[in-house]
C-alpha cells in the first residue's frame, strides 16, 4: 500500500490545479469578460457554451481534490483536522480547502444553476443568485491564498515555522 500516498499526492495536485485554475479563470477572466460581452450582446457565447463546461470540471475537480487530499492524509486525517501538534499547518490548509469545497457545492453551484437557466428562477432570484455566487467565488479566491501557503508548507517553510 506504499503507492497510495504517491498516487494520492499526484491526483491531489492535478485535480487541485484544475479546481483552483478554473476558480482563478472565473474570477480573473470570466467576470470581466461577461461584463464586456453583455455590453456588445455576445454574452450568450460564454454563458451557453463556456460557463457550464467550466463549472462541470470545477465542481467535480473540487470533490476529487478533497478525496485525494483525505487519502493523502491517511492516518493523519484526524490529527490534521484537530490541529494537533506538528499538524496545525497542514490542518489549517485542510480546513480552508474543506470550507472552499462547501462553498462550491453549497453556494456557487446551486446559484449558478439559477443564473445559467438550468433551474427555473425569476429575474429577482437570478439577481440575488448572481450576488451570492459572486461573493462565494471571491471568498474562495481569498481563502485559496492562505490555503496554498499552508498546503504547500514543505521544507521550504522550515524557517517560517521555526523548524
Amino acid at each position: 500500500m506504499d503507492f497510495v500516498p504517491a498516487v494520492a499526492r499526484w491526483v491531489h495536485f492535478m485535480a487541485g490545479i484544475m479546481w483552483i485554475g478554473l476558480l482563478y479563470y472565473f474570477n480573473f477572466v470570466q467576470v470581466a469578460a461577461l461584463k464586456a460581452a453583455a455590453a456588445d450582446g455576445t454574452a450568450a457565447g460564454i454563458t451557453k457554451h463556456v460557463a457550464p463546461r467550466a463549472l462541470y470540471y470545477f465542481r467535480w475537480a473540487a470533490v476529487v481534490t478533497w478525496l485525494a487530499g483525505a487519502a493523502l492524509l491517511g492516518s493523519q486525517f484526524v490529527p490534521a483536522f484537530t490541529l494537533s501538534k506538528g499538524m496545525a499547518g497542514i490542518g489549517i490548509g485542510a480546513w480552508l480547502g474543506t470550507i472552499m469545497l462547501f462553498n462550491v457545492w453549497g453556494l456557487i453551484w446551486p446559484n449558478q444553476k439559477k443564473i445559467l437557466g438550468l433551474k427555473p428562477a425569476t429575474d429577482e432570484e437570478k439577481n440575488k443568485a448572481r450576488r451570492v455566487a459572486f461573493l462565494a467565488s471571491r471568498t474562495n479566491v481569498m481563502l485559496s491564498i492562505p490555503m496554498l501557503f499552508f498546503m504547500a508548507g514543505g521544507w521550504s517553510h522550515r524557517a517560517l515555522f521555526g523548524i
Partner: protein
Amino acid sequence: MKNPLDSLWGTVISGVVLTAILYYVVRTFLN
C-alpha cells in the same frame, strides 16, 4: 464601507492579510 471582495485587488490583499493572521496563530499557539 465597500466590500473588499468586489475588487480583485481587495480579494488578493484580504487573502494575504488572512495568511499573515493564520500564520501568526499557528506559529504562536499551535506549533
